[in-house]
């Protein structure tokens, strides 16, 4: 199945010994001229790239306190060294968070600090050479920016901040990653990551409407560009096509239908994902975020709700107000933006949704906390709502639920292995190996608790699991959307009486 060795699952999680260079390589496919230009970056490695890279480093140190403080503050205590899923899965020491940071920190020290300028050997500072740049490209694309290391660092040093800065520096000297940059170009011109134009999107949604009505005999709508609707739904474009994403989208539509609210998608802002974050580019991230602002204004909506997507929810919850606010033209009675899980949960609290959880009795569920939701955002008004709300929804929609081991969920959750711009076929080895810790935890509850499926609220997690579950002996359809469970269990008030429902279940 693969031209690399799939890691064996550990019975007890012992910390692996270092194996230097196991993941040394050329990194993902390099970006090409049209994508680079669309994002405002040079086509190819510029002539005086060393100088330009150091200038960009200065620029970023001056704009981001996180970068400056984190470059200075690491004491090399080693607390993070066993926390990264890529280190656990690959054993490559450069995948230890501190060593990954050091790739940039060593250069910073060499050129920007007294000790590194005059005593480079003493403090481990190195010159910026082509070899170092190659290591940057390779290893900063083996980081999913999941922030697990930052939870365990005594100073909160966040490797994601460093890897974002490193990618921004590389882009600025003409070394971009094809996967991310092509997608940012598409989202910035067409409106979504898939490059799906308005007619195709309209067609798809129409097809969905027919399919759902045929299935449940209720006219659940999937409106597009409907002016004057109350709610703008911004969802990852994978929700329009991919499995199990689309089943989640059907779930959102049923919830909106049952709530009796008017809602719409926008063809102009038909993407929740924002890969501008992955490449550390405030400008590109803002450019994409402003499309949502424009769509909300043009359509005259009152609220914005985001679909199931991890990093999108980070950008939405934590950054959208900064990037594209203020949102004073929307209804002040609702937070901007809201997560679809918050929306559904609020309706549940008000007693407006009814479920028949036995519809999901053929499954025993566990929940994968997606990293950006768990460690970089919130739901509801209490800290930790991002853990409680999705679980409350699953438990309302399903009778059988089991959590994975405590140190692998919530704020300690393991990344799926595909986040942060890694979800591309040219990084398959990184993805499969990086999934090992999550697969171990999942396998444990499968064996010990009879778990059959794993639910998630992130488009990247869903796509990644579909791909990697089979490598570890599980079915690719084990992964489900949270709102897919809602979709199965929700009882729509205007549904025709289903006569074979109650009789043959028990």
């Amino acid at each position, binding site marked *: 199945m693969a031209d690399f060795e799939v890691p064996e699952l550990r019975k007890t999680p012992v910390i692996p010994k270092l194996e230097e260079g196991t993941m040394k390589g050329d990194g993902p496919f390099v970006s090409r001229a049209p994508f680079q230009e669309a994002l405002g970056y040079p086509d190819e490695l510029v002539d005086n790239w060393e100088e330009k890279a150091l200038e960009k480093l200065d620029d970023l140190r001056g704009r981001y306190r996180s970068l400056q403080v984190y470059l200075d503050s690491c004491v090399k205590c080693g*607390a993070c*060294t066993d926390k990264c899923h890529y280190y656990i899965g690959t054993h490559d020491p450069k995948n230890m968070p501190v060593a990954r940071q050091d790739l940039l920190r060593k250069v910073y020290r060499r050129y920007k600090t007294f000790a590194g300028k005059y005593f480079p050997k003493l403090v481990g500072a190195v010159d910026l050479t082509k070899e170092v740049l190659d290591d940057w490209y390779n290893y900063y694309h083996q980081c999913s920016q999941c922030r697990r290391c930052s*939870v365990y660092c005594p100073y909160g040093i966040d490797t994601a901040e460093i890897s974002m800065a490193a990618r921004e520096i590389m882009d600025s000297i003409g070394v971009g990653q094809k996967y991310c940059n092509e997608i940012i170009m598409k989202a910035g011109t067409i409106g979504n990551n898939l490059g799906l134009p308005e007619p195709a999107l309209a067609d798809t949604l129409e097809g969905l409407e027919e399919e759902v009505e045929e299935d449940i005999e209720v006219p659940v709508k999937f409106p597009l560009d409907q002016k004057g609707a109350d709610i703008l739904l911004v969802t990852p474009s994978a929700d329009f096509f991919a499995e199990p994403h689309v089943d989640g989208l059907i779930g959102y539509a049923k919830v909106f239908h049952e709530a009796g609210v008017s809602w719409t998608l926008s063809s102009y802002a038909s993407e929740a994902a924002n890969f501008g974050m992955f490449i550390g580019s405030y400008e590109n991230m803002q450019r994409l975020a*402003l499309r949502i602002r424009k769509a909300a204004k043009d359509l005259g909506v009152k609220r914005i709700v985001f679909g199931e997507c991890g990093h999108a929810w980070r950008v939405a919850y934590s950054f959208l107000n900064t990037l594209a606010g203020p949102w004073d033209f929307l209804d002040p009675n609702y937070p901007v933006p809201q997560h679809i899980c918050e929306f559904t949960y609020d309706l549940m609290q008000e007693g407006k949704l009814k479920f028949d959880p036995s519809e999901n009795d053929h499954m025993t569920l566990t929940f994968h906390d997606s990293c950006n939701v768990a460690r970089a955002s919130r739901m509801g008004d209490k800290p*930790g709502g991002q853990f409680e709300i999705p679980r409350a929804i699953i438990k309302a929609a399903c009778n059988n639920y089991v959590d994975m081991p405590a140190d692998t969920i919530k704020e300690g959750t393991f990344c799926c292995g595909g986040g942060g711009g890694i979800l591309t076929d040219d990084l398959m080895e990184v993805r499969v190996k990086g999934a090992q810790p999550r697969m171990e935890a999942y396998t444990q509850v499968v064996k010990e608790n009879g778990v059959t499926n794993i639910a998630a609220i992130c488009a990247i997690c869903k796509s990644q699991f579909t791909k990697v579950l089979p490598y570890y002996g599980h079915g690719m359809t084990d992964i489900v959307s949270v709102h897919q469970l809602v979709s199965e269990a929700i009882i729509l008030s205007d549904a025709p009486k289903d006569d074979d429902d109650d009789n043959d279940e028990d």
Partner: protein
Amino acid sequence: MSALSITYAVMFYVAGAILIAGLFVKIKQYAQTPAPLKIPTTPAPVTQTGVVLRMAREVVLFASLFKSNKWIWVFGWMFHLALLLAFFRHLRYGMSPDNILWPLVSLDLVQAAGKYGAYAMLIGLGGLFLRRIVVDRVRYISAPSDYLMLLLLLGIAGSGTMMTFVAHTDIVQLKAYMQGLLVLDIRELPADPFLLIHLALVALLMLIFPISKLLHAPGVFFSPTRNQVDNPREKRHLAPWAAAMEADRQD
């Protein structure tokens, strides 16, 4: 006045000036560099009071490190606590008895804690040093300066411990010397080898503080993942440079 007394005085003035100026420059840099995005590691406090408590847990208890690795926590916390106790004990050597803090500093408890804390400091530092050599992951990330830093601290703690328990120095004369330094009056320094080693290493530590990883001490207070309030939806967060970009936004 002996050349030794003058040399050490100059050394302390230079080291002190560099420590203060260096820290001032770095703290100013940290304070003035904007944090353009809300990036607290969540779950995070939703109020400023909550942030103060979170920071206190980090700085006093090393809460994140405790979650992370019990061995590093034990050794690291032991060392830092001993450092604090030693600091309080040492205040006596630069403070006159009419200082308002004197009753506190001269308490037997404070003095004894500082005295026996020396062992905790040596054990803590020794443990960290051993880990750096023995654990392959930590060895991989260590530069020569990382070992030397621990040796420097061990040297300071060791020479201090020797003076406390084995070869006392003339503490009255030392106190006069230190109080003299504070009023720019260079007096006679006792020429005991452990004292001279102790003071020279402390001056060296002061010198390298603002140009080394010891910047973690001010750095932790400026860490956005730990010091930000989790309220991005309620309150718009905008850095000056981001606001400038927004000035020519069309919408």
